[in-house]
């Protein structure tokens, strides 16, 4: 059984903040097949397309038949922990300050032996379930988990290095006026976040759901307008050092394509709210979060973007909106690289149309804000970095993987 996490005490302002260190972040190009799987929370290994042999570590040639056709595919993650060790000295600075650290040899049911991190509750000689996770350097590693979940298993110290669990963390939700922001606040409270700062532009203006939002446990309303650089700077100056998870819930979905809109007013607004809003958050909160990537139990952990899945491929009915979302996705990739030095993850949640007034004329299925919020918490608990929520997003992702050109034509039909 894992010792439950203890709520961190207030930080002693005189103590030096521990600098974030990273485990080795170098992988072979083929090895990034594991990174791709871990980013989405899947367990995938290479399986030879010619002889069916499942192999690990990643290779460019099948050690059974010398085939070069070695695609990564999802494989059963179960196995047996054959041998374990507790590392007490390490040559690496990251692990040196995290010893003792357990690893073990897991013989997978699908064949290969996998030297993996061990969850504290796994026992030598018993069955385990492997998961691929992203470590602080953003690279895939496997951790062997107990076959059946155990009490407080998410609090395990080695597992928590790989996740962004909101428990005892402090969250900033950038916009609480919309349904998504309000659902996110409730989901974070339910996940055990210790403080939930909720940004509201012009808080003196009433808005639907305000009373219930103010009742969310540990919620604190802050005046925040992402279109106003000074407002973002002011809020960051006040609370950036206390933000462990930032969720950008600010949205601006407007129908319409490229050619038939008159002028650029709406496009300017879209870019100002979404793209420049993201840049303002990144510039004013990013550096502080990056510096706090190893700051104890409530270290800075994640910067969350809620993106339309049409950031990946344009939906002409919402053509200009899709383009603004694509700009946000591109910026998020840059931000991901910049925050990696601090071990802080960028989580992109890709969603189809939400069940809100701005997608009123779009037929179902549509995603409820509550589902998006729950999925965000789940993704943070898994520490993944790309999550496709709901039927539409998964459909688009699946079709993109198979035939992007067909998808482009079909979305434009």
């Amino acid at each position, binding site marked *: 059984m894992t010792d439950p996490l203890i709520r961190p005490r207030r930080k002693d302002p005189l103590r030096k903040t521990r600098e974030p260190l990273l485990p080795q972040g*170098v992988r072979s190009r083929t090895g990034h097949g594991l990174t791709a799987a871990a980013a989405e929370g899947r367990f995938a290994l290479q399986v030879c397309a010619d002889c069916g042999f499942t192999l690990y*570590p990643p290779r460019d040639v099948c050690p059974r038949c010398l085939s070069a056709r070695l695609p990564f595919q999802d494989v059963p993650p179960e196995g047996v922990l*054959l041998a374990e060790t507790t590392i007490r000295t390490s*040559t*690496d600075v990251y692990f040196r300050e995290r*010893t003792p*650290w357990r*690893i073990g040899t897991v013989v997978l049911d699908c064949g290969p032996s996998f*030297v993996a*991190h061990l969850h504290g509750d796994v026992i030598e000689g018993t069955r385990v379930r492997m998961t691929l996770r992203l470590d602080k350097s953003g690279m895939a590693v496997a951790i062997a988990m107990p076959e059946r979940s155990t009490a407080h298993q998410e609090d395990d110290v080695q597992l928590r290095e790989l996740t962004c669990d909101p428990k005892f963390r402090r969250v900033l939700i950038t916009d609480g006026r919309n349904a998504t922001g309000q659902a996110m606040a409730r989901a974070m409270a339910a996940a055990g976040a210790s403080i939930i700062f909720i940004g509201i532009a012009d808080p003196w203006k009433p808005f639907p759901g305000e009373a219930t939002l103010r009742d969310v446990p540990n919620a604190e309303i802050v005046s925040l307008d992402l279109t106003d650089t000074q407002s973002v700077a002011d809020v960051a100056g006040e609370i950036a050092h206390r933000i462990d998870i930032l969720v950008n819930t600010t949205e601006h979905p407007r129908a319409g394509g490229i050619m038939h809109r008159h002028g650029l007013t709406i496009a300017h607004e879209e870019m100002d709210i979404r793209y420049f809003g993201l840049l303002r958050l990144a510039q004013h909160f990013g550096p502080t979060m990056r510096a706090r990537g190893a700051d104890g139990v409530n270290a800075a952990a994640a910067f969350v973007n809620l993106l339309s899945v049409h950031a990946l491929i344009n939906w002409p009915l919402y053509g200009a909106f899709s383009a603004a979302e694509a700009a946000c996705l591109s910026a998020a990739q840059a931000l991901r690289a910049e925050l990696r030095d601090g071990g802080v993850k960028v989580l992109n949640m890709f969603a189809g149309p939400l069940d809100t007034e701005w997608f009123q004329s779009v037929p179902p299925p549509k995603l409820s804000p509550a589902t998006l919020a729950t999925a965000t918490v789940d993704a943070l608990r898994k520490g993944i970095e790309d999550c496709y929520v709901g039927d539409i997003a998964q459909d688009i992702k699946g079709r993109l993987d198979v035939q992007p050109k067909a998808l482009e034509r079909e979305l434009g039909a």
Partner: protein
Amino acid sequence: MKRRGYDGVVLCAPVSVPYRRYSVNSAHWWIGRALHALTQRTGMKPNELDGLSVSSFTLAPDTAIGLTQHLGLSPRWLDHIPLGGASAGVALRRAARAVQSGDADFVACVGADTNHVDSFRKTLSSFSRFAQDAVYPYGSGGPNASFALITRHYMNRTGATREDFGRICVAQRANAQRYDGALMQKTLTMDDYLGARAISDPIHLFDCVMPCAGAEAFLVCREEDARTLGLPFVRVLSAIERHNAFQDDPIQYRGGWAQDRNDLWDMAGIQPDAVDFLQTYDDYPVIIMMQIEDLGFCAKGEAPAFVRAHTLTTDGDFPHNTSGGQLSVGQAGAGGGYLGLVEAIRQLTDESGPTTVPNARIGLVSGFGMINYDRGLASCAVVLARA
């Protein structure tokens, strides 16, 4: 096809350049010191060495070819053997065939490495592609952690205890006290061994070798040339090597010796009981036990009982790692792969001084190396005989 023997080929001029814990010198310098000692020893001029075989981890960005210009040598036969603990046996096999066929007359075989203050960490993090992808990110425990897993599994499977491993380490330290070149000569008791701090359970401090700088070398030539130079020599009765054996074993429980030992003994024309001393590659005691079993000195899984039944010291029964092995002398990188072979040549040419095994006529030298991912890939063994 029946293997051809190594008739007419001999080994001579064993050279050990005194080790240092850390060195400010380069691998080139250490290799140079070894070759200098070799020429002093043999009375040869450097350009009379027409063959060179080099093993070193810290020579980068150079390889053997760059070294020829650095050293001013002009060999007509050149080899670079990056096989760690199997380097010397493999170098011997290749050099012996070159000499036997006349492709070269005098092959200098050298294993050497430097050890800068930060060398070890750098070597580990970029040791192999699999290490980069699948070992170093998992705790960065280095070989200690990899061998901890192998040791743990071996203990679970055979019932070996820490005391069993300790017997090996304590005996080797006793041997090292007779060998001037050993970096660690302080008496090691079983209590010291058992009370040492844990490094990566069940590996504790005295299971680990100490990385250091050093160089080892010997000369391979034809018997008549050794006689002309007036050099004492030893004969090669047989030699095997094998890489990536038993790849379907889920964790390493045996090495390539188990696959090739019949070849080894058949070619030598003797059985294990004819061996007067054994030099194993001792980068972790569990691998010594595997060598004892897989080479045929006892049945599989019975090495713990075997080490309980023998003293393992130079003056007792079953002398083993007679100069103290890497566990007491230190691990000079690829030089560690040469330690046992060079010491064996000294034993069989009456040059081993205080570590001498009385009346030794046959020595077995075994090599093991290269944890690429989860197990050592290279293995070799050589049977040597007094001339």
